[in-house]
């Protein structure tokens, strides 16, 4: 089976897109002199694959990249060497052989921070509780496949659990949501909240991916 990296993507690196990040890794492996497997075919190139594409602007401390380490490199040395060859904001934490299949990655824990620099309205906490406590919450989602350009999706079944904590100028929502087939992009929650409760719309929302979990809710690696 393949090898995996666990890495985080924070700060300025949040704005590197998925495709650009793959190219950045390919080059970083070369810079760090870590030989990796190449794809086969007419134009062989270093093979890297990132498990769940992260939206541009989101931070994460649990990204997983698959690749194939060629013999002769001690996996222990990979995180430090690779981090040194990375742009600011990307830190590689672990390098290990894959033990389980990526499709077992079932849930993601996102932290959404709703920012109210001028003070948080008291009522936004019951509002989000009410929104997420509904039987169903059907929203329109962009889709390239559908003729209409969007499809309808119910968010509630995709949320496994949630928890909200408030401070004077922020509301922090931690959610465990479905990771894939279909996954839930927490942006849809933000949009639904702002649409249903425009009076509580925050000035800004940050998104952070804190953990990836398997079907039982245990850490996925």
């Amino acid at each position, binding site marked *: 089976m393949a090898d995996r990296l666990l890495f985080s993507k924070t700060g300025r690196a949040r704005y*590197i*897109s998925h495709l650009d990040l793959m190219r950045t890794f390919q*080059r970083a492996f*070369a*810079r760090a002199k870590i030989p990796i497997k190449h794809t086969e075919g007419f134009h062989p190139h270093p093979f890297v694959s990132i498990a769940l594409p992260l939206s541009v602007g989101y931070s994460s401390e649990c990204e997983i990249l698959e690749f194939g380490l060629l013999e002769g490199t001690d996996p222990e040395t990979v995180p430090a060497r690779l981090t040194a060859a990375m742009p600011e904001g990307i830190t590689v934490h672990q390098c290990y052989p894959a033990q389980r299949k990526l499709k077992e990655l079932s849930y993601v824990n996102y932290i959404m921070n709703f920012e109210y620099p001028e003070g948080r309205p008291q009522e936004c906490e019951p509002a989000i509780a009410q929104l997420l406590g509904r039987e169903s919450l059907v929203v329109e989602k962009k889709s390239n496949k559908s003729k209409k350009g969007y499809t309808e999706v119910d968010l509630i079944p995709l949320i496994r659990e949630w928890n909200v904590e408030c401070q004077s100028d922020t509301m922090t929502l931690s959610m465990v949501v479905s990771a894939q087939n279909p996954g839930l992009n927490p942006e849809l929650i933000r949009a639904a909240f702002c649409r249903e409760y425009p009076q509580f719309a925050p000035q800004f929302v940050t998104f952070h991916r804190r953990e990836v979990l398997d079907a039982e809710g245990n850490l996925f690696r």
Partner: protein
Amino acid sequence: MNRTLEQILPKVQKPARYTGGEYNAVVKDRGEVDLRYALCFPDTYEIGMSNLGCRILYGVMNREKGVWCERCYAPWGDMEEEMRREGLLLYGLESGDPISDFDIIGFSLGYEMAYTNVLNMLDLAGLPLRSEERPQLTPLVVAGGTCCYNPEPLAPFVDFFVLGEGEEVTLEYIELYRQAREECWTKEEFLQEAAKIPGIYVPSFYEPVYGADGTLEELAIVEGSGAPEKVTKRVVEDMDRSYFPVKTIIPSTEIVHDRVMLELFRGCIRGCRFCQAGYVYRPVRNRNPKLLAEYGKAACEDSGYQEMTLSSLSSTDYPCLLELCDELLDYCAPRDIGLSLPSLRADTFSMNLMERLQRVRKGGLTFAPEAGTQRLRDAINKNLREEDLLQSVRTAFAGGWSGVKLYFMLGLPTETDEDVLGIADLARKVYFAWRECTPNKARGVRITVSTSWFVPKPHTAFQWEAQIPVEEYQRRVNLLRDALKRDKSITYNWHDPETSYLEAIFSRGDRRLADVLEWAWEHGAKMDSWTEYFDFQRWMDALEACGLDGDFYAHRERGRDEVFPWCRIDPMVSTDFLWRERELCYQSQTTPDCRTRCSGCGANRLLSGGVCNG
């Protein structure tokens, strides 16, 4: 990261352009630097990051103790809108600090259509546009790059211009600035001293005086300024001792030229009479091939790039090309690193080389015969024989290439309809060469003919020439289009004339055009090299509002003794030589290249031995 920026970035396209933080970006401790320099490129990140000159200057400055040079590019419209709405000033990518707080703001000027971006970037930085409205020493606004060979249209906005290569002179004026700041000089006092540094042109020390017919009578030296009669361009004499950016910024997002760039030499031996680069970058100075091979390998190692390109004005003229390519190939081939060689001449030697380099990908080939007949090619001194071109494409087609692009100019001096139709003939001959040589007729062939509208440039043999009128350009385009109508394998593209007309105005324009630039900018002009933003009518309105006639600059032939707006700028290629070249053009006489015979242009005076190594 700045909070405002953090909130803006999710709303704009390609936000990675605006964050900095790339591999090898230089971040210094604010407490340990005394000189902050904003190296500004008046176009997008993708274009600016591809500029080798800027990478060199970035490295040259940042290896100095106490100097922190940061990058700054023109934001795309969506980003600009957000910045203006949120009151976020233009900032250096490395620190995020507003460039208005920097000591020196330097612009790289490579293209006339980027001038409005210079104004827009100054405005986005929160600075007054005109030099006289910035009475303090700090920040200084300076500019370098090829466009500075006629800096006059930007003269009122820029404190001083730097002529020629910047590696040495940049550090000289930084030192002078430090002294000025230490000793509390006024800006005027600083500029007077700066004007004594060779290569520095302080426009406020020269006052244009116009005659009744609108031409320049003189560019008078302001009394007491001590400014020199002529400002001579700077060159780096010894390329082997000059800085090469081995360790350079690797962008985290795609840019235009995203590969290792290996600069073989500066200057060009050819002397094409229309080519400004060919004249102003003289004399030819080569880099040692051993050194180049080392640089190339080290740059690949440090960057992780899988592609390397050799760069120069005419790579085939590099005397040690084969030796260098062999050494690089030994390194690149086993590592799957692609080696490409643009700016090749269409001769057999080059084609053999191409075949050796590009074993895998056989995309398109590009040649620039520039003119359709031998007579006109001789007149412009483009020493390319038809037979050489055809032999090259034969080799290429036989080797499996199936696409050729051919570039030409319309409106070159002495051009006749016969020359225009000659382009169609040449394209057809290329087509027949394909039929004769291709191993695979079923695959078809793509031959693309592109024509641009000739723009006469300062410091060339054609600096006196008129650009042909637009109606005449259009007629010649139609003539060629009709001639190529029936050739299904030949595609004909032509440049829209509007941009070329403005280029012709600004490239030989005088200081009065500064008002036109400012008017156009005030009325929304920016990013004029992008069709999304370019508005020709706005420029016509700007000229009219300022009482100026574009045709006066673009379409008027100048007399031998006309005083040019660039008369104080000396690239060390003599005007007598350029005039001689122009006369030879009218006799369709060629001038041999610098290696075959020195034609006495004068550029050798820039070298301490007085002899070019061309």
